[in-house]
């Protein structure tokens, strides 16, 4: 049962080299979130290592997005949402009242399920973050940042002749890479991705996955995904949520080949429900 035949290649080569020894980037303690009094996640404790990809998996409505939004305090923008508990990034408490969420969100970038470029040009989309945070002193610097970000997002060659076309005119996969370029243009420390490939076709998905694998060298990435194979391919660590509770967390290899909890096993083998 532990070496389930459904997942013969569940532990890909690079995931196997899970840098368990990486320092902890985010430490989450006793985090509970409720919407208008209805609990969405309940006492979550988790350590997210730096310079690696952590996949969050679990059935719909189990609180994955809610958990992700705790990390950049986007839950603050939802009325009726209350968050308690303790979240530390580099040992610094970011849930404290005196921490400016704007400051936090500059450190923690986010990519959403539906590609959501601004209805502006490709250039302006990527330049937006550096502009509002004052990262570029000159136009040349700004152009440099835009080009670097687009290159790192693997989009430069496709858009370099159309930087002043609307970002919304790109294809879905290009838009999602544009949004990633936009996020990394301000050089954040953590990137949150909420099902970034669920609206994309397999080829675009493959490109994003490649990109995530590259970004892992520099960033701490937390990604929500519904695809078991994607989690297995790109993540080093995996956390399984169910009904607002964190059921199990560990290296991706361990979760996929040797889950401790019965529910985890059922979920990853598709017997859930």
């Amino acid at each position, binding site marked *: 049962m532990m070496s389930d035949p459904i997942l013969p290649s569940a532990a890909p080569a690079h995931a196997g080299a899970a840098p368990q020894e990486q320092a902890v980037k985010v430490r989450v303690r006793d985090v509970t979130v409720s919407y208008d009094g209805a609990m969405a996640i309940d006492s979550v404790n988790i350590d997210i290592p730096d310079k690696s990809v952590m996949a969050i998996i679990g059935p719909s409505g189990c609180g994955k997005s809610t958990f992700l939004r705790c990390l*950049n305090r*986007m839950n603050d923008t939802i009325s009726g949402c209350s968050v308690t508990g303790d979240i530390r990034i580099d040992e610094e408490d970011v849930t404290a009242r005196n921490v400016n969420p704007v400051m936090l969100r*500059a450190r923690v970038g986010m990519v*959403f399920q539906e590609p*959501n470029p*601004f*209805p502006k040009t490709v250039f302006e989309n990527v330049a937006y973050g550096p502009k509002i945070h004052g990262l570029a002193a000159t136009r040349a610097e700004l152009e440099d940042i835009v080009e670097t970000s687009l290159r790192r997002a693997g989009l430069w060659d496709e858009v370099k002749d159309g930087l002043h076309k609307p970002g919304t005119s790109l294809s879905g996969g290009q838009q999602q890479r544009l949004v990633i370029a936009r996020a990394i243009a301000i050089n954040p420390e953590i990137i949150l991705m909420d099902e970034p490939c669920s609206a994309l076709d397999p080829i675009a998905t493959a490109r994003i996955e490649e990109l995530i694998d590259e970004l892992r060298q520099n960033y701490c990435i937390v990604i929500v995904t519904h695809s078991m194979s994607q989690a297995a391919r790109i993540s080093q660590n995996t956390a399984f949520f169910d009904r607002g509770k964190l059921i199990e967390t560990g290296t991706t290899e361990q979760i996929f080949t040797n889950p401790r909890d019965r529910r985890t096993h059922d979920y990853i083998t598709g017997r859930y429900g």
Partner: protein
Amino acid sequence: MQASDLSTPISQNPAFLKRMKQRSRADQRFRYYGLLAIFIALALLVTLLVSITFEARSAFTRHEVSLDLQLTDTDSRSVYRSIRGAVQNMAGDPADRDVRIEMSQLVSRLAAGGITEALQTSGVDLSATYPVRVPVSDEADRYLKGLATPVHRFDGRGYDQAGARIESDFSGAMQVIQRWHREQVSIIRHREFEPALRMRDGLARQAEAAPGDRQLAMRLAGAEHRVELIEARLSDFEARINAERLVLDEFTPSVLFRSGEGWMKAISISGGMIEAEPVISGLDPDRQRGEILVIEQPESQRSIADAQIVVLERFQTAGRISSHFNGALFSNADSSDAEFAGVLSGLVGSIMIILVTMGLAVPVGIAAAVYLEEFAPRNRWTSFVQVNINNLAAIPSIVFGLLGAAIFVNGVIIPIPFVDGVFRLGGGLGRGWPLVGGIVLALMTLPTIIIASRAALGAVPGSVRQAALAMGATRLQTVNHHVLPMAAPGILTGSIIGLAQAIGETAPLLLIGMVAFVAEMPQGATDRATALPVLIFQWSTRAERAWEPMTSAAIIILLLVMLVLNGLAVLMRLRYEK
């Protein structure tokens, strides 16, 4: 197997096929209804525009008369005296004082004003004659435009003259007059005789049912008398239809006869001859040329006298009457004389009002909408505010006028108990100021702008806000950089609709004191002024017929202002959407 059985493929299911047909027919019908609705709306619009333009067309031109003035001095009194003199001269310098007054009424006293100004700046040689062009009075203008009365002209060639009798072929004139009598007969029959008959018969039936009622009997007697009177008039008119000779007076059409420089007015007419009295002497002694004018409207029913018509006709034949574009309509302030009245003061007043309204309502409205939509927490207090903004939008505009008059102009006076004093809240602004009008209309427009702006902001997808916030933008940056630009077209449209509504408002402006007659141009937002819609209202209530086309012309100008405003909105929208 039944037709409704699920084992039948849907394309062979008769119930489905039948329903399908019904559905496509309903679709078709709906399209036709839509087309019909659009057609009706367009037709109404076109009818409105065409009828107003048709009404207004005569206001856009006016007739002017060229006079050679013999000036004695350059002050407006002397100038007016000279103008009057020139007109009376054309009338043959009548001795009768009433006729002289009639003549002087052909040109307004106000005409002297402009000439005086010109004279005083240029200086003038009092010994020479001074040629001027002045607008004729509104009634004369209506006559020259053919609006005052139908005029029929016949050739009077070959007449024979014997004292006050003119023998010529008057059969054409006779026909016109007989036709007019026939028309009168039918008008009297339908409008007076038949109603009087019905009244009498009704009373007679009532009296029969209540034989003892003395009051009823008296009323019946009165009604019977009336019927007799009308019957007498009717038979009088009927008799005149076929009469050989007709006596003419101010209750019948007038017949004027011109020959050379001379004019005669008929006192009786028959097919081959009129008896006439001279109006202006100088009949052509060669008896070759002549013209017969039948003025169909009786003199007692029109506001231009036969003698005035004669003078106008003389000016006309002397080539001294010309028709011009009515520039005064656009360059003058209001005036009590239609030929000098213009919409400029109203236009300026309206522009000042709308600037105040725009300056207040647009920024406040957008700020309120942004706060409510983007920043305010959703709680009982904000929903209370929202409900009341909607209520505010439903308040009739006249109430805002009352409020404005009370708060800004009069002030609210609250007696303080026990001490002998009052507390005065507000007040201090003047009646009829564009500033006050602007503030009141801003209050009225505010809810419209807030509601439209909130709808536009609410239609901006949440993903844009999330994207910006997640990038580390502040709320203000999110709103300014992304939400507002996306909502701008909707906000603009809402604001323009609100302002267009405000520009056409009359009632609140009347209530804050914009009722008075203001003949001066307003100097600023704190000066008595009038506004276009108020002007339209005032002109529509003035008695002289000449104000009717003027009112329509002012309406067209107001519509044009709105058109310009809406055009601007469309332009700005297009630029934003790029």
